[in-house]
């Protein structure tokens, strides 16, 4: 990412990256016995892929402009691994909100906590993944922006930092829209924004010494009551309807098979 026209190099940009630790996408996800959660024993946990784009973009902006990158996450102690990975990629500071009262209360509650935590960090820019690949709600990023009362742009595939503002290319169906927002603002990432770097060995070593604070709700003047509110409460989880295989189209030649297929699609399946 290069500074856009009018950018002054060394105009520091302080960035907060929102990060969630999630099961890796190749994981086998199974419903637990309680019917409202998933089995977690065999899962491999990673930084949410869309948050990796966020960390990477933050690092690129810092490299171009100067400033700082703080990674912020709400999670259990396990999330420390994910934050350390982001620190190993090059982020400066990590903050983990580790409070049982903050977990499992839904997107708006999570966003309230994150916003309260962001307010304690000087920032020009907040970058979040468009969605977490477990919940797939796309909700936390814009909700955090709402609670911070800053503008937000979703699904950004390219950024250009200008003086006091940022241009974001956001993806929509059938194209891209370029918008310009004043800072401070929040944007969420889209696949294609960048190629996240791997943490290097020196990076991993340095990360061990970087500050990683753990906070609870009380640090933000919040209590368990503040976590209650409207939510989409899971009442049942199921595997998707099993889709069995159909039939292999037979034929003496490729031409015969093609003809048999189209006939089946037209007469049997009635989709063409």
């Amino acid at each position, binding site marked *: 990412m290069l500074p856009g026209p009018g950018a002054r190099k060394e105009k520091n940009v302080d960035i907060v990256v929102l990060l969630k630790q999630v099961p890796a996408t190749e994981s086998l996800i199974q419903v637990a016995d309680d019917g409202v959660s998933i089995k977690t024993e065999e899962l491999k946990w990673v930084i949410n892929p869309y948050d990796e784009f966020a960390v990477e973009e933050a690092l690129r902006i810092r490299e171009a402009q100067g400033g700082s990158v703080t990674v912020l996450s709400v999670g259990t102690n396990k999330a420390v691994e994910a934050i350390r990975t982001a620190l190993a990629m090059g982020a400066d500071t990590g903050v983990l909100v580790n409070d049982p009262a903050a977990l499992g209360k839904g*997107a708006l509650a999570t966003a309230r906590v994150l916003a309260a935590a962001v307010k304690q960090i000087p920032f020009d820019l907040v970058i979040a993944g468009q969605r977490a690949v477990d919940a*797939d709600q796309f909700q936390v990023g814009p909700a955090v922006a*709402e609670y911070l009362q800053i503008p937000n742009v979703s*699904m950004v595939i390219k950024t250009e930092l200008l003086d006091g503002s940022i241009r974001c290319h956001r*993806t929509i169906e059938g194209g891209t829209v*370029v*918008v310009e927002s004043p800072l401070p603002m929040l944007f969420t990432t889209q*696949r294609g924004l960048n190629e996240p770097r791997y943490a290097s060995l020196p990076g991993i070593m340095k990360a061990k010494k970087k500050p990683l604070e753990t906070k609870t709700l009380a640090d933000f003047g919040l209590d368990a009551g503040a976590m209650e509110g409207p939510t989409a409460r899971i009442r049942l989880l199921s595997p998707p309807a099993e889709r*069995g295989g159909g039939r292999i189209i037979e034929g003496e030649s490729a031409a015969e098979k093609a003809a048999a297929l189209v006939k089946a699609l037209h007469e049997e399946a009635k989709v063409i």
Partner: protein
Amino acid sequence: MSACIFAISEQLEGTFRKVSFEAVSEGRRLSDGLGLPLVAAVIGSGMEAAAETLGRYGADRILLADRAELADYSTEAYVRILAECIRQEQPSLVLLGATAQGKDLAARLSARIDAPLAMDATGIRQDGEQWVATRPMYGGKIIAEVVLEGNPPIAALRPNAMRIEQKKGEGRMEKIDVDPGTIQVKTVDKTLETGKIELTEADIVVSGGRGMGGADYTVVETLAEALGAAVGASRSAVDEGWRPHADQVGQTGKVVSPNLYVACGISGAIQHLAGMSTSKVIVAVNKDPEAPIFAKADYGVVGDLFEIVPLITEEVKKLRG
């Protein structure tokens, strides 16, 4: 007090996105079931004629916020206007399409009005006094039933999941005069691919995967053209740089739900299946008879796609005359 079902439409460059009719139709079905009126919201510029058409899909009242500044989507302006409408209308349920814009709007609106949100809902119904939505999680590997606790609940509907039905509503137009307020985020430019069928709205999708062997997707594109279909790609093809990110179908790409999905040279990794497994009919063309996709396809053809796919195209052309 619940006075209505509230459906939010979406327009781009003055034309409604297909999902607008899906949201209004679904809203009509729900409002009929509950004996409530259906209110549709339209925001844009020069949208009066288009807004009227929502009456054909069941809208009883059509709230129209029509101003030059609202031509392009603006999170701030649209959320401000809709929050005010919702405050006045006191709906039992808010519906909109879970498009890129809809996702952004639904998320910010949910925080603005403190409302529960079911994103990418494939079903929404009342169970007793509660609104319950069905929605995928973990990229479609899990289906969740969620109770929307709070008022009013918002269901952002998966595009192409709800049937469009023409059913006449009262269609009374009401121009609303809500101040959009200061708009901080300004649209600077737009690049739209005209004439290209949008993947998430298409009735038929033809996709190419690693088996395409390179960036030449001619055989897939030609079949797509003959079928009036959109063209998709697997993650492998996108990672190789053969196709753009926007074409990717899968857990970390787009989720599509067409009537027909034709997978060419795609092996059928779990992540790809997550993006198309709700397609009505799946066809797989692959030279590997052991490819996992055959276990999920309704019809499979084993063979060289570069030989088979053009022959399928010929047959389709014959069929369509």
